[in-house]
């Protein structure tokens, strides 16, 4: 699917979605993260919890994406290459749910980076300058969401936040690596001889 159709689809799906107050959204996420900080000792645990939460969100929102796109008459054909998946995610998926598009940077046939310039989750956030916050991945929710939603369409991926505006970088970058294309079949014993 061409880049401009993906973007146009994303925009019109975004128009149809019911909206929430961006500040409420950012503040709710912020309190969620601070609660996790209180509950867990290490930043690894916090990041892991955020990723798990994102995973639960991701497995559910992929169906919504496919159903509403279908309802709007858009054709989202099965991706023939991982690059197409990346474009659909960045331009249509992100735009539909968050109102912001991401840029795609292909690294190889089975991995890409998503660059997010405006991050609705971190609207008012400033990380304290204490060195223990160096490793916290504030927006790790996105990694879980991507992993969950791609798993539902049979792509096993690993996502990590490699750059974070809150940590001083100029852009938020999420690296997505394709590990396996899951195939459910009848099993090897049913293969034709």
């Amino acid at each position, binding site marked *: 699917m061409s880049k401009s159709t993906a973007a146009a689809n994303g925009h019109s799906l975004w128009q149809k979605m019911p909206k929430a107050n961006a500040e409420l959204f950012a503040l709710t996420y912020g309190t969620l993260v601070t609660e996790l900080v209180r509950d867990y000792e290490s930043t690894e645990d916090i990041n892991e919890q955020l990723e798990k939460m994102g995973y639960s969100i991701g497995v*559910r929102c992929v*169906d*919504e994406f*496919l159903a*509403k796109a279908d*309802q709007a008459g858009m054709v989202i*054909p099965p991706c023939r290459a991982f690059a197409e998946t990346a474009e659909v995610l960045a331009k249509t998926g992100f735009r539909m749910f968050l109102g912001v598009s991401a840029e795609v940077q292909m690294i190889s046939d089975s991995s890409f980076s998503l660059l997010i310039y405006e991050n609705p989750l971190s609207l008012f956030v400033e990380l304290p300058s204490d060195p223990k916050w160096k490793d916290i991945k504030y927006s790790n929710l996105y990694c879980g969401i991507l992993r969950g939603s791609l798993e539902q369409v049979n792509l096993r991926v690993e996502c990590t936040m490699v750059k974070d505006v809150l940590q001083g970088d100029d852009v938020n970058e999420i690296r997505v690596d394709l590990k396996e294309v899951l195939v*459910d079949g009848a099993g090897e014993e049913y293969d034709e001889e």
Partner: protein
Amino acid sequence: MVFLSLFIVNKSGGLIHHRPLGPNAPQIGTNEWLRIGSTFHSLHAIAAEASPLRLPGNKNPYGADDGIEEIHAGGLELRCFQTRTDVKFVITAEPGTSDMEYVLKEIYVLYTDCALKDPFYELEMPIRCELFTQAVDNLIEHVEKNGPSKR
């Protein structure tokens, strides 16, 4: 147009929802429904494998995998819609019913809005959401009275 029943099968073949949609729907016990669900799931998979026309990558360009899409029988028409996430929505109706495709797609949207957004609903488990069943009933009532309307 008279709709008969709806059933939804998850990606492992288990039945997650069944519902009569009209007064003519057959009275089938839950165990029978479970059997129907898994039989249909297996037949769907076999049909995809047995298809003489194997499309490249075993995927047709605008839809999920090949598999059973329609069954026309003497007293019944069945339509199946398999989502890209391997959930199958199957609806049966009396012959001559139109708009089954439309109804299936709308039910998919209702599934995403009512069942998936329920925080207590676990994926792949039977759907026990009042909101979903109510919305499906309203949809069927609306379609039977007025024909399809764009949302």
